[in-house]
């Protein structure tokens, strides 16, 4: 048991925090702004701030510190782009029972879905993607966004409704 509180100023601890949270943080920002470079910069910036304040931030609070800083940094950034998501290169089985028509249809559906997601309002999109891609629990998302779980659930439901309505319209 590690009762002793780890100091964020320890290089190793700092690295652990980076490994644990940098990717989520990056996704979180990317879902907001759709700009890879900007998201990377915000991650850098947030971690620099964490290092500069390492003596004031206890290990347990590092995560929420990072998200708060990232959110605040993001408030100052203005540029928003359409997010571009990749289709996971799932190791497709060699053979499939599905017909070529079905596969084509499937592919079309994916393209439509990506477009509709990109068009979602930012608040709905970030919740939806954090849940579906990053597999975050609602409680985790509520912590990241600094909103209530209930609000996360509402946004999630709204996102699904919007997607359902929009995907038929294309």
């Amino acid at each position, binding site marked *: 048991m590690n009762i002793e509180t780890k100091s964020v100023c320890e290089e190793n601890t700092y690295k652990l925090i980076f490994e644990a949270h940098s990717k989520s943080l*990056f996704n979180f920002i990317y879902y907001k702004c759709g700009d890879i470079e900007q998201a990377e910069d915000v991650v850098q910036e947030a971690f620099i701030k964490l290092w500069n304040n390492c003596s004031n931030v206890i290990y347990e609070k590092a995560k929420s510190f990072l998200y708060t800083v990232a959110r605040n940094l993001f408030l100052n950034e203005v540029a928003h782009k359409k997010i571009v*998501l990749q289709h996971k290169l799932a190791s497709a089985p060699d053979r499939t029972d599905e017909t070529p028509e079905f596969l084509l249809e499937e592919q079309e559906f994916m393209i439509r*879905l990506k477009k509709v997601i990109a068009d979602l309002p930012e608040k709905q999109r970030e919740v939806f993607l954090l*849940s579906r891609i990053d597999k975050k629990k609602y409680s985790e998302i509520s912590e990241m966004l600094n909103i209530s779980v209930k609000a996360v659930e*509402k946004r999630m*439901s709204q996102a699904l*409704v919007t997607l359902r309505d929009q995907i038929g319209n294309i």
Partner: protein
Amino acid sequence: MEKYNQDDTFLARWISGELSTEELNEFKKSKDYALLTKINDASQKLESPKFDEQVQFQRLKSKVFNPPKQDKKVIKLVPNWAYAVAASVIITFALFYALTAESHFKTGFGEQLAVVLPDNSKAQLNSNSTIDFKSFNWKNNRELDLNGEAFFDVEKGKSFKVITEDGVVEVLGTEFNVIARDHYFEVRCQEGKVKVTSIAANEEIILLPGKAVRIINNKAERWEYNVNEPNWLLGESTFYNTPLSQVIIALENQFQINFDASKIDLSERFTGSFTHKNLKLALKTVMIPMDIFYSADSNNKIILENLND
């Protein structure tokens, strides 16, 4: 209306598998279930852009760890208080300068200069003269230092003093002329009333218009002159019973020439005037009545000799 359309967290709970069996069974019967399931399944096949943790950490490292001691104190090369000191020193000097600064005006050979003093009084400098005065608080302290010759037109106000090495001229709004040069001190009152204090003669003299005084050999000599006759301001210097030495100085200053006056008697008196416009004419009008012969030598010096000798 289906239930999930009314309950605004229903779909969220469905996604996270929090629905009760009944709710789920009912939901499965709805027309949107298939589409929503498809959306849910498909969206989980999406992925976010690549984020290279290694590269990003290296990038971060170079920014964070390279300046190894981030809590190193920055000591300013110039401490803050130094600026305060510098500023106060400058202010002190500026104030000192403003309070004591003297305005300085000087004319060279053959030059004249009109100086307007802070209260609109005018001082006209004849050639080769200087005045100095302090602009600060001029209205309450109208004093100026004079060396040379100047004509003053003084606005009404508190006492106006012209301080020279040989005496002080004090007035209350008037026009007057002062010559104070090489221990020669002469004052002519053009208008108003002038009080002259001679240091050498240790005497106070009050001059009315047309009256003049000069101090020679520690004695005051008074005379009268015509205030309407042309004076140096109009391009002519006039003298009344003036020692030749002063006339020669006036000539020298006006025309930037040098006299060798070693062979004549400088204490002789001259009455008359000379023009500023023409050196030859000026020399003639001064020297001929005085029976002085003048000739230029090789160094552009004008040698003066008595004709009688």
